[in-house]
């Protein structure tokens, strides 16, 4: 089981990665984020307080439940317009 994880903008640059399949079972987006932050080093960027996230292309909160096969995205605050 895995979830597809996407990184955008400053996070993508800091991590040097735009997407990956993450194996494992994560009940929520928060649990997935905690797993990623524990990788240490550059992954600390995902611990930023103002991080935004989306599940299956819709903005969500960190307590959003996850299911296998979901697409999750992490990104800094949006700055369009």
């Amino acid at each position: 089981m895995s979830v597809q994880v996407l990184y955008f903008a400053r996070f993508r640059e800091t991590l040097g990665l735009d997407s990956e399949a993450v194996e494992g079972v994560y009940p929520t987006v928060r649990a997935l984020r905690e797993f990623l932050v524990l990788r240490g080093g550059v992954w600390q960027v995902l611990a930023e307080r103002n991080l935004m996230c989306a599940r299956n292309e819709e903005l969500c909160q960190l307590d959003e439940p996850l299911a296998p096969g979901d697409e999750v995205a992490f990104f800094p605050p949006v700055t369009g317009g």
Partner: protein
Amino acid sequence: MAIRVQTAAFDPGAEVNVLHAANVGVGAVVSFVGYVRDFNEGREVAGMFLEHYPGMTEKALAKITVEAELRWPLLKLEVLHRIGALEPGEPIVFVGVASAHRQAAFDACAFVMDYLKTRAPFWKKETTSDGPRWVEGRDSDHAAAGRWDKN
């Protein structure tokens, strides 16, 4: 309702004209155009790159326009946002609203921009005199969007 996300430049005047063409029931058109400035946060800006989240971008904009249509009696609503490389002076975003009376058009246009600023997945990276830098989100944008929250 139309949503376009494109790399190509556009003509804001032409977009405004389309909003009342072929509909004499339109009594009011309000539009907003956002431009790339040549100066921001104390640095000269030579250019900008707009990154986005393909797929989610279109969905997020569609959701915002549907919400605007639920709140106000609108006849037309157009959202156009550029992505990719832009230069100072170029338009980045266009929001145009047509309605029978002005207040709905004024409010809906402001609403769409406020929500776009805080909910649509776009990120600006500026090329400045000190090198490239990501534009940071502003708390004032969230305050502006918050005024549309329903109690």
